[in-house]
């Protein structure tokens, strides 16, 4: 199965060769804009105000690795929602693939494999830009790419599973509205979750993004970890594996009738 899955990865790459123009601008531009506006602009206020004392770091430095993890999440969720829906329902390209020796397992693995490659590219670009902003050293920036990719995959897999069950595309915009965007805002990317009301704080630790942010920040800045990094990595891996298995099951139920 592993070998045949590579053919699906190749397919992803081929489609990307046709469509990269749509996403490549944002791959480069988003980190620049975010780091400029939030890191530099807002950061000046934070650093001069009481925020500086709380986080004990320049805000730009604090923010950049968190945003790296959050960007990985957004990229993965984007790639595993509308394109997967298109494969299942709109263009039926999965159905076309399943008429060949390719199986459902290959589709899922190949999809996640391709998203993984995309994530290496997107987070790699991000890490370099982060370095250019002086938020971290190049070496430490590069070190934070693997946990960022893992964070992305911890979302890609369950989002694929979720999409495989959806009949209507409104479920996708709801997922972003009520899932991805709140996670983006409240998982420790922009401010430490200790700032959250005590009642919700534990919730933040349960989100995979918090662990992704923790790993990326810890590695990029050489900080101490609140949660042991291996535990965080294992937690993310668990999301990835469980999501992948569910995606396989739901996709089979959907496509093999």
């Amino acid at each position, binding site marked *: 199965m592993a070998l*045949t899955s590579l053919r699906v990865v190749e397919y992803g790459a*081929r489609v990307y060769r046709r469509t990269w123009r749509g996403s490549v601008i944002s791959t480069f531009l988003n980190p620049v804009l975010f780091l400029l506006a939030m890191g530099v602009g807002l950061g000046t206020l934070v650093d001069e105000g009481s925020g500086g004392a709380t986080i004990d770091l320049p805000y730009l430095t604090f923010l950049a690795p968190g945003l790296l993890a959050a960007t990985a999440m957004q990229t993965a969720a984007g790639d595993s929602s509308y394109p997967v829906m298109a494969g299942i329902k709109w263009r039926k390209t999965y159905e076309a693939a399943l008429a*060949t020796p390719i199986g459902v397992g290959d589709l899922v693995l190949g999809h996640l494999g391709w998203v993984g490659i995309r994530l290496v590219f997107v987070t790699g670009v991000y890490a370099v830009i982060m370095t250019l902003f002086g938020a971290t050293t190049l070496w430490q920036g590069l070190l934070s790419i693997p946990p960022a990719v893992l964070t992305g995959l911890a979302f890609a897999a369950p989002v694929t599973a979720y999409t495989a069950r959806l009949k209507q595309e409104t479920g996708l915009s709801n997922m972003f509205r009520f899932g991805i965007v709140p996670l983006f805002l409240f998982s420790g990317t922009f401010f430490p979750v200790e700032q959250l009301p005590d009642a919700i704080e534990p919730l933040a630790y349960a989100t995979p993004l918090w662990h992704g942010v923790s790993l990326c920040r810890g590695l990029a800045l050489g900080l101490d970890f609140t949660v042991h990094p291996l535990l965080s990595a294992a937690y993310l891996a668990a999301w990835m594996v469980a999501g992948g298995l569910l995606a396989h099951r739901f996709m089979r139920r959907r496509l093999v009738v």
Partner: protein
Amino acid sequence: MTEPLVAAHALTKTFGDFVAVDAVDFEVRPGEVFGFLGPNGAGKSSTMKMIGAVSPLSGGTLRVLGLDPGTDGPEIRSRLGVVPQEDNLDHELTVYENLLIYGRYFGLPRKVIDERVTELLEFAQLQDRRQSTVEPLSGGMKRRLTIARGLINQPELLLLDEPTTGLDPQARHLLWDRLYRLKQEGVTQIITTHYMDEAEQLCDRLVIMDGGKIVAEGSPASLIAQYSTREVLELRFPVGTEDRGVGRIGDLAARVEELPDRVLLYTDDADAAAESVAARGIVPESTVTRRSTLEDVFLRLTGRRLVD
């Protein structure tokens, strides 16, 4: 006798409580073109998908290329060509890339694919569209590309689900010609169609399905011989004509069928029947004498109703 390429016994497909394919038996022999005819919802596509090893059986047994689709799916699919009823080309990719990707799904090396693509594009008359994306192609071009795609792995068995639906007559004839060439090359084909002339042209043997069951089986000629007469006399009347003389002509034909605008007499000699009709003083608006076709058989067996 050679072993059949496809052998189905009591083959059944259910969706929940609904029985889409109801215990059908059929065999497809190497080298032949085998047809499934039937009204909408008869279960043709459901049967094709089971043969294509993409849809699990709900009951019965099925052997494809001597293998079991339940356990040897990838092996079977690697030796099949499939042209689905609904277009599932990748519209974002070019004509060439669609063929390339499909070839890669079959694990073919790039070099082999490139050689075959050149032949297939010629076969499908799409040479000058090689680098064009699929999106703007006409329906007929897409259909031809889908067929070319189904041939990239040089299949032993080709499954064509309504290959010419939506094509103009030129494109249909071109396709028939191509399919005939494939038959000459020894590619076994299973075709579903709504076009009776297509079935008569292409199929060595066919089955007529209705409501998930096979209601007749044979060569086009034998089906006509069995279920119809040699010729048909059509008497056309303006709609609403009170007396069309049906009561007085029953003895002139093996079977008489009344339609709103026509009376059909199934007979072995339509000209003779026409003279007798005239002799009995029945004067239709016009008369047509013609040979019986598969369409007559089809309509007789599946009824003149609109399913769906």
